[in-house]
């Protein structure tokens, strides 16, 4: 056991690992239902854009097992689940705006009967013309917000004066979250119209508020509990539809109601990642240094604002990735389309912004016939100059140059580039490609007030600790890491700390477990609570035992040590209790230093940055477009990791999820706005054979967070997803080899086999 003066670095298993592998970990659908529990199902729109003429639910009501049916008229309060803006009606009254939009719901005696019942609805629509793609929306100027413009310097004149100019456009695709546990909620009515709601959500506090508003009740009448969720990735940050409808059914029937979407409904009803389209003009010198950039970024936001404004903002804040852009202008179009509302997804727009600039860098390098590695380095932020971002924030923790150089050596990049060129010159039908890409990702919610967290810690008289905080355990190991921090701070073995469900009645007004900052924020809040309890204890001990010690006591190995006096933790807790000392405390944390002016796009939106880099080598089959990843080398900065095994898991998992986004994961809508990829048979996330044949992942050894973050660690939540950018550009490199690197391939993401083959065909036609 390390004492609290040391930083932790302990790869213990996930807190629930034993329960995961034995099937004993309880998820929302696993909670045993009391007798009389009803089961819900949602009936949804079959049109993408239409006036609702009539909803005939007679057959639904008559269907076997149906106890109750709810529509918009059953909602006593706010008929909207929009988290920031309105626009997400629970059940629309007059008009449907996407294929899959909920229209009504039933509660029946079994899941099967509820799902059968909803299929019996007869709904007549007056169809309107729907807008499905970004291009259609741009053409019709169908935007959710007015165009946002940000500008630094004078890009137009810089571009005009530059030696080289390139113009082009680029698309990155949508992505379905495909958390393995779908959306599910379980609502139990209590006295006074109170509700207890178990929900698979990343955001219990907002679930509570939205349900309260829907029922026209106060927040104090709704309690939301979450023990763990089976994956979130952003897809459970604002999706309050399921829990709200579940709560409404429970409210109306006065019975417990469980509502679990099946996979198809989940994918059809809920939002996905924003597709982005960019149109750019860039000026650069003969070494590839960017002198000016003008770019239009348009995103497919779906039918409502949801979090699109913040997501697009993060795209704008990451359009630089790791590059110093002296003169830049961005226009941002938030397109409204008749599709499910696009929502948060790991990376939150940052990845889309970064892909846009990486594609530009790649094209510059190809244009100049230089290795993209050199062009990237040329443009990197530096330590003492070129260190102010386009939003006016000074980089104080920049390690990208070090990480990059280190990885270039470690991965043997330069030698392999030569070997690959040799291989390609000898092989006609298989081509290899390689790419190295950097990641710089800003940490903090860009909506400043969200950067706060609370915790509640109790020490019981037997010396055991009860830990509660506002963060959600969704696989990222936040509970494990925070319990490690708490145990270490008390100088106790990990097993003494019991983590309990996240609960709005224990810790109020929490932010979503999102923006990679769950452990940073909640860990600090938990430590704040611990420090308050410790203060009580220390005051008691020093007074009672007349210790006049100027130095801080040490908590180690189950003892509290004041110089040469030591007290056994369990014993002194007993004593403290008998002397009426408070052994429980709430804790609070708010991130310092950050401020951001959204109007002029200036300030310090991020507390710190995460850095990393990846080298990927691929082989493509030029006859079929098939491809494999031969090798990936990653070096990622996790600061001083609390639990390196957990961080490694985040890095590898994030990479593979990003790989899926940029290669095989393709969301399709037909011209009528019906999503056609809504189950694992049609939507493919990476499976076991897709991962790199060689996968060398390392945490950057010199990493340390310069800011005062718990354990001097850096989060690994979202940033590793962007390491997968290297996969895309390695594929592009392999395609380029077909034309002997003379022509720049045209390739949009995701680089499916089809897109690769078509890109090769296009390239050959231009030879």
């Amino acid at each position, binding site marked *: 056991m390390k004492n609290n003066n040391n930083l932790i670095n302990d790869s213990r298993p996930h807190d629930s690992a*034993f329960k995961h592998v034995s099937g004993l970990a309880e998820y929302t*659908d696993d909670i045993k239902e009391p007798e009389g529990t009803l089961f819900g199902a949602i009936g949804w729109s079959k049109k993408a854009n239409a006036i609702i003429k009539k909803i005939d639910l007679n057959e639904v009501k008559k269907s076997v097992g149906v106890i109750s049916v709810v529509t918009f008229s059953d909602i006593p309060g706010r008929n909207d689940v929009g988290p920031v803006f309105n626009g997400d009606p629970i059940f629309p009254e007059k008009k449907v705006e996407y294929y899959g939009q909920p229209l009504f719901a039933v509660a029946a005696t079994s899941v099967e009967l509820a799902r059968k019942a909803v299929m019996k609805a007869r709904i007549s629509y007056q169809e309107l013309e729907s807008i499905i793609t970004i291009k259609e929306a741009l053409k019709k100027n169908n935007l959710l917000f007015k165009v946002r413009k940000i500008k630094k310097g004078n890009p137009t004149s810089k571009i005009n004066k530059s030696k080289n100019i390139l113009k082009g456009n680029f698309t990155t695709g949508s992505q379905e*979250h495909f958390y*393995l546990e779908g959306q599910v909620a379980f609502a139990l009515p209590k006295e006074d119209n109170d509700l207890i709601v178990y929900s698979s959500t990343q955001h219990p506090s907002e679930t509570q508020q939205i349900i309260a508003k829907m029922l026209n009740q106060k927040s104090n009448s709704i309690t939301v509990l979450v023990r763990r969720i089976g994956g979130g990735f952003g897809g459970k940050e604002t999706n309050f539809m399921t829990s709200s409808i579940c709560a409404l059914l429970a409210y109306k029937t006065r019975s417990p109601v469980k509502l679990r979407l099946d996979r198809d409904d989940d994918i059809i009803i809920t939002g996905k990642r924003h597709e982005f389209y960019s149109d750019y003009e860039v000026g650069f010198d003969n070494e590839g240094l960017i002198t000016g950039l003008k770019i239009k970024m348009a995103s497919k936001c779906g039918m409502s604002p949801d979090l699109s404004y913040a997501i697009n903002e993060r795209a704008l804040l990451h359009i630089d990735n790791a590059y110093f852009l002296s003169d830049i202008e961005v226009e941002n179009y938030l397109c409204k389309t008749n599709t499910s509302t696009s929502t948060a997804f790991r990376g939150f727009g940052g990845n889309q912004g970064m892909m846009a600039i990486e594609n530009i860098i790649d094209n510059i390098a190809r244009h100049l016939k230089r290795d993209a590695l050199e062009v990237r380095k040329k443009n990197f932020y530096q330590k003492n100059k070129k260190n102010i971002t386009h939003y006016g924030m000074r980089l104080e923790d920049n390690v990208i140059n070090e990480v990059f150089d280190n990885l270039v050596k470690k991965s043997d990049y330069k030698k392999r580039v030569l070997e690959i060129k040799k291989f390609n010159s000898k092989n006609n039908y298989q081509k290899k490609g390689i790419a190295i890409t950097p990641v710089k990702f800003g940490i903090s919610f860009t909506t400043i007030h969200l950067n706060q967290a609370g915790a509640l810690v109790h020490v019981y008289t037997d010396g055991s600790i009860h830990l509660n905080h506002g963060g959600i355990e969704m696989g990222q190991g936040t509970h494990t890491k925070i319990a490690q921090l708490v145990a270490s701070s008390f100088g106790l073995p990990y097993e003494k700390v019991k983590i309990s469900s996240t609960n709005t009645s224990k810790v109020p007004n929490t932010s979503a477990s999102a923006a990679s900052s769950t452990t940073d924020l909640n860990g600090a809040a938990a430590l704040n609570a611990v420090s308050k309890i410790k203060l009580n204890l220390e005051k008691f001990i020093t007074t009672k035992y007349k210790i006049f010690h100027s130095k801080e006591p040490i908590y180690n190995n189950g003892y509290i040590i004041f110089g040469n006096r030591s007290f056994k933790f369990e014993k002194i807790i007993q004593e403290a209790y008998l002397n009426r000392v408070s052994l429980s405390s709430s804790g609070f944390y708010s991130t310092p230093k950050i401020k951001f002016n959204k109007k002029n796009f200036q300030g310090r939106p991020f507390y710190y940055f995460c850095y990393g880099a990846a080298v990927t080598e691929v082989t493509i089959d030029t006859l*079929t*477009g098939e491809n494999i990843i031969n090798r990936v080398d990653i070096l990622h900065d996790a600061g001083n990791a609390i639990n390196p095994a957990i961080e490694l898991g985040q890095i590898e998992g994030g990479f593979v999820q990003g790989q899926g986004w940029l290669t095989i994961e393709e969301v399709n809508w037909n011209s009528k706005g019906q999503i056609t990829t809504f189950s694992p048979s049609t939507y493919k996330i990476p499976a076991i054979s897709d*991962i790199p044949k060689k996968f060398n992942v390392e945490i950057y050894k010199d990493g340390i967070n310069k800011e005062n973050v718990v354990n001097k660690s850096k989060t690994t939540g979202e940033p590793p997803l962007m390491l997968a950018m290297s996969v895309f550009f390695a594929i592009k490199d392999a395609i380029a080899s077909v034309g002997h690197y003379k022509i720049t391939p045209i390739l949009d993401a995701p680089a499916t086999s089809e897109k690769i083959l078509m890109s090769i065909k296009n390239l050959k036609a231009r030879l």
Partner: protein
Amino acid sequence: MTSNTIEFIFNNKIHKISNPDPNETILNFIRLKLKKTGTKEGCAEGGCGACTIVLGELVDNNIQYKAINACIAFLPILNRKQLILVEDLISSDGKLHPVQNAMVKFHGSQCGFCTPGFIMSMFAMYKNNKSFNDEIINDSLSGNLCRCTGYRPIIDAAKSLNKINDNDEFTKFKKKIINLLKKIKLKNIEINKENKKYFAPSTILELKKVLKKNPDAKLLSGGTDLSLEITKSRKEIKKIIYLNSIKELDFIYTKKNEIEVGAGTSLLKFEKIIKKYYPDFNTILKRYGSVQIRNVGTIAGNIATASPIGDTLPILLSLDTKIILDGPKKREIIPLNKFFISYRKTKLKKGQFIYSVKIPIYKKNIFKAYKISKRFDDDISSVCGSFNIEINKNRIKKIRIAYGGMSEIPKRAKNAEKTLVNSTFSEKIFSKAIKNLDSDYKPIDDMRASKSYRMEIAKNLLMKCFLEVKNKKILRLN
């Protein structure tokens, strides 16, 4: 003897259910009736593996452990099997099974929702193999999706099992389970629950009787497609005849020039035999679907479903396969290329069933097959191409080309074949044949591939086949 009661082993005891609902999935039974919630529903179509359970089956006085998707298997098929759930792997003194231990040790779980499924697939792998290389691990786990880990720690956990002796409680209690399984006698099962009927005849004779009385019944072989009518379309299947209790349909006869495969033979069993004759057939079968699917799926099921994207069909077509149909009248043998009529319609008449599939063995021929899909594992083909060529003195004596995914039925490329047959084996003639594909097929656009891409790869696969033969070299990535 006919009974409406199914019997299976659960927790080392015989468990009986009288008149079960034949439309109930095993997953719902486990979660709702047994109240065991370790087994999860991820997709209800056998596509994610979260519901993986293991069935112990008596084979040659030993127990074979089969991982299956509980979400698309019907309750009555538990009859005469041992049901093993993730919770059952913990030993009687509360210790984790070696497979579970490895997953903890190597950080194989993050959100934990897919974990029970992985545990069960890995458990079946552990019980059925002595050592575990990359190929066995990837094959065993390709039907389990994980969205958190990126699989590396799971692979490491599986690899670590190489150093662990197989002396778990399942080995300890094996004799007892074998004896219990033997106690459950083979009977004809006939269930009549509300308006739903289920038959599991134990002989062909009995099957014919049942079919005669119920010509409108759905034949259930693997059921990996049929079950979706319940789990996805939310329909009821009123009458089901389950074929896999009939031992006479589970066989593989290898003769000198031919392999005959019984309709009830699992794909997993078949792929092991066919590997010797047609390695590419084996490779494609491994990618046909996950172990969970191939443990129950059958070649006859794939034929009867007649999907244009069924992976075995173009292969069987190119091999001039014949099928034997049985039924009220005499057995008839028909060439497979005469069997498919239109989209998912075949010549199988009411009351008829597929008895077996006869695949010729061409020892001198070159046989090649390729599957192109968005994802390597467990995906449906965009295009599947199969080529069977007899070359004599650089002359193409006979050629069969068939594609899946190119038309509403799996079919042969007659025009391309015509160009190639009796020609000299040359790039020129292949280039000509490639152009014929435009007239052989009119593929469609869907979420898997566009029609232009489909045509492009169909052509390129023919060229790839030529190049591989010409250069005597395999040009593939995996």
